[in-house]
């Protein structure tokens, strides 16, 4: 009997690699969620217009509100000249244009179905899952390799992530590109493929696309620049080291470029919300505090106001008056000085951010389509075990995140040190990847709070949980493969 099971497993492992298993499982789990009617996705929180209008897609007129409550499946495709110039520069456009092309080929030239958007992301996503699992387990096909594959599915096929695919948010692109980015570095580190240039190329492409995916990603150019340093340590690579350096420069330039493309309108909105959703929060009565900073204390009454007010505003934040008496005074330097003088408040805000790290599935918008028998704004519970667990048990303290980062970096710096001495590269690449991911974990909350307060915080922090989960997976895979500090083992496979 035992032998029979062993034989079966043996045969199974011959035909189905861990990566294939993970991909098929992810395909089934997320495929049901995204494509089996009634489909699921994310409703519009009012941000969709930024990405759809410049791509020639518009909302079809309806008698009901298309915001927040239900997922809207059908959009219109503009037939004539699109006068909306590209309002926001983003690599998201690439994904949307592919979806548009497929939609026009197979469905309609006038109506856009959100499922084509989902399909594009779905295909890229499955590729990412395959590459990632491969990077973690190859060349082994042991039981522990399959466990690793299942773990990847458990974490990264969570509906909290895949729900984003059926939406016009930029986050799914970020998620998928992050999969490719990490998969390429880990593949290089573990010498999965005989040739290095495809993975190096993949890394730079996905990094640049990731940074240019959303303007808030501009500071991440530094984090991923750090990750790219690891590639410089690859052996027999002298000729291509220049190319790598060029790649790093490109990554940094893409960060600067996307930063420069931020329009004055968005700068105004961010300046205002940093104030109303940041400096005025997590403190009893900010009136006196801001007055000490030289701003009229009356502006404390703007607490929790949005720049784009949803219904009525006492005073339009976009008005000249607010600009002159508030926003011209509260620039970046003012914010930094304010928080430096109110460290406790800043720490509280960072804790708010830390609590939002696990809120991957946005709570403000519904996941179901209209007439599917669900309440407006209802959330999907299907395959959200991991994100729910994280939400329930992950400590919402910024200090904990920092400790975790220090821990990860400390653990991987041992491998880094050993490899530098032994002139190997696996530990070095891994270290720089972990280091880069941890800078995301530590600095993105700070940048978000300083840059836009707690407005849209959970979405601004989207890459933090992805980075944490990726590091966790790497840690577990190194434990399973016994390669945490012993990096010799892998070189055997070369």
């Amino acid at each position, binding site marked *: 009997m035992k032998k029979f099971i062993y034989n079966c497993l043996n045969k199974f492992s011959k035909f189905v690699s861990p990566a294939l298993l993970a991909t098929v499982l992810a395909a089934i789990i997320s495929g049901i969620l995204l494509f089996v009617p009634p489909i699921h996705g994310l409703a519009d929180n009012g941000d969709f217009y930024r990405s759809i209008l410049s791509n020639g897609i518009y909302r079809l007129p309806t008698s009901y509100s298309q915001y927040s409550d239900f997922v809207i499946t059908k959009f219109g495709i503009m037939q004539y000249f699109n006068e909306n110039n590209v309002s926001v520069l983003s690599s998201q456009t690439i994904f949307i244009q592919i979806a548009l092309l497929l939609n026009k080929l197979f469905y309609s030239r006038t109506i856009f179905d959100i499922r084509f958007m989902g399909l594009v992301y779905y295909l890229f996503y499955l590729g990412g899952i395959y590459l990632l699992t491969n990077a973690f387990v190859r060349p082994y096909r042991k039981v522990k390799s399959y466990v690793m594959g299942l773990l990847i599915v458990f974490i990264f096929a969570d509906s909290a992530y895949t729900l984003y695919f059926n939406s016009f948010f930029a986050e799914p692109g970020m998620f998928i590109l992050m999969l490719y980015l990490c998969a390429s570095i880990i593949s290089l580190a573990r010498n999965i493929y005989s040739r290095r240039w495809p993975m190096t190329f993949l890394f730079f492409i996905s990094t640049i696309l990731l940074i240019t995916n959303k303007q808030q990603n501009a500071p991440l150019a530094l984090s991923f620049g750090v990750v790219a340093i690891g590639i410089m340590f690859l052996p027999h690579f002298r000729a291509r080291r220049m190319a790598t350096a060029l790649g790093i420069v490109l990554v940094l330039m893409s960060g600067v470029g996307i930063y420069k493309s931020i329009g004055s309108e968005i700068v105004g909105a961010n300046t205002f919300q940093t104030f109303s959703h940041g400096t005025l929060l997590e403190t009893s009565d900010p009136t006196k505090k801001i007055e000490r900073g030289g701003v009229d204390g009356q502006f404390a009454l703007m607490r929790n106001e949005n720049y784009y007010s949803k219904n009525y505003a*006492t005073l339009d934040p976009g008005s000249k008056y607010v600009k002159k008496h508030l926003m011209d005074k509260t620039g970046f330097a003012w914010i930094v000085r304010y928080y430096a003088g109110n460290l406790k408040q800043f720490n509280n805000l960072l804790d708010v951010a830390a609590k939002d790290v696990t809120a991957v599935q946005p709570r403000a918008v519904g996941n179901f389509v209209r007439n599917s028998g669900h309440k407006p704004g209802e959330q999907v519970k299907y395959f959200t075990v991991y994100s729910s667990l994280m939400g329930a048990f992950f400590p919402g303290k910024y200090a904990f995140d920092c400790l975790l980062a220090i821990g990860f970096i400390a653990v991987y710096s041992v491998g880094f040190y050993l490899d530098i001495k032994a002139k190997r590269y696996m530990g070095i690449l891994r270290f720089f990847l972990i280091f880069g991911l941890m800078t995301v974990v530590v600095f993105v909350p700070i940048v978000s709070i300083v840059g836009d307060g707690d407005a849209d915080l959970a979405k601004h922090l989207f890459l933090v949980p992805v980075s944490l989960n990726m590091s966790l997976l790497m840690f577990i895979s190194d434990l399973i493969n016994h390669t945490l500090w012993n990096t010799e083992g892998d070189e055997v496979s070369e």
Partner: protein
Amino acid sequence: MNKGIKFSLVMSLMLILFSLFNFSRTINAATNHNRVLLVYDSQNDVKNDKKNIDALQRSLTSMDLRVKTVSQADYKKGTLDKKYLGVITMINWRQVGLINREFINDRDKFSGIKLHIGENLTQTEINQLGIKVQKVYQQQFILKKDSNREQLPFSQSITVITQQANGASQVGTLSTQQTDQRSYPFGYINGKQGYLPFFTNKGLSLIVQTQMIAQLFDRVGKFQPLLTITNVTLYTNLRTLDELSKFCYKMGIPFAISTTSVSKNTEMKAFDRFTAVLRNIENRGGIIFLQTPEVSSGVDTAGQLLNQKFLTYIVSLARQQVFPVGISSAGFWNQDKVLRNNSLKYADHWLLMQDGTKVTYVNQDNDAQIAKQSFFAMPAASLNDVKKSDSTTFTIPTALTINMPYSQKELEHVESEIKNLPLNWYNPVEDGFSSEINTETTSLKYNHGDYLVNGKLEDIQNTNLDLNKQFSDGKPNSLFKDYFKVQGNILAVFFVIIMIILLIFIFIGQKVYWNRFKR
């Protein structure tokens, strides 16, 4: 006994008759005594004639006329009937003019009051007005009324009256600037027919126009202007506002302010300060109009959000003894069902201001309603060229507005501006201003300077006039604050000592350990 029965019979009969008469009169009033239909050809956005339509609508509201506004394209046959007291035709774009035949037919048949504004008079209208007209091109006119003169902007073309009917009256005169100085009537009234060559939203022209319209509709009154400080918000420089109200008080000038409020964060010190300054204003004889917020989007289709906001505004202000006497808003709020019903409707006194650059409707119905009294707001500066004296009055309730200054310099400028207005201002206390705001939860009344909240007379606390003191930190000093502070310090010192001892032990221990191997 017999006499008594007879007397009571006669009395009751008289009562019944009187009430019947009264009843029929009220019905009449509801049906056609105050309803006016305004039909315009186009809004002519290039020239921004929307502003003129808005000014006309507001002035009619101030005359207690309920104006229903229709674009000629939306006019349906038979709309204009007996339920209307009058009809106003407004031509903004002469190249388009009136093309809706059904309206023209209905108007020709209509027997009520008719006013034509602008060019493109039809032959029927000319006959009914009993005039002869002439088109004059490329002219710059001077408008004269009594001893006032105003130079009008250059006009491409204008239709002037060259011959009037017997018994007609005119309001104001237009004269050319050439040497021969020809002059024509400006506002022209012949019985129930009226004609205005144009309508603008400022200056002497606006005053003459409203006078003419009031005359045509028999609504001429005598009103002293109300000095109103507008654009007051919670983010205004409160010191300046306090100074300004003190200035008016010392000069003996009664005034009003139009201010917005917030529905959130009312527990903050910033809100306390704001209401403290408003209380000072009340104590200095100023009255407060609660201004409507800005409409950012039309999502509030049921008006619940706005309704909730207004209830909170009024309750949170009243809690701080700030009692608005009326509601102020941009004119378009009265043209929108949701906006009007959830804000203006609470008050019986309105102050309607010019539409700003941003006009967002929630549910536009263009069916303006009226209040007990609506002030027509116009910038005081727009009357700079009009002669004023302490006997100047306006034909409709008018608020002359001055923008809230910010800096000391601006304040001084505004103070001298007010000083230089030789007007006899409307005084809410002496002139018997009496108003009400009623919401589901609160009833605020103002009567001759007295404030009543839910029927109870309120004595407004005189707030500390020393603003410096008011703006002080005023942190409550808790009993244990110092204790905790000392305790914290002691603990910190304690831990530092323990750390040092620990470090010493580690150092000694390490030495002892190494010594074992050293030998």
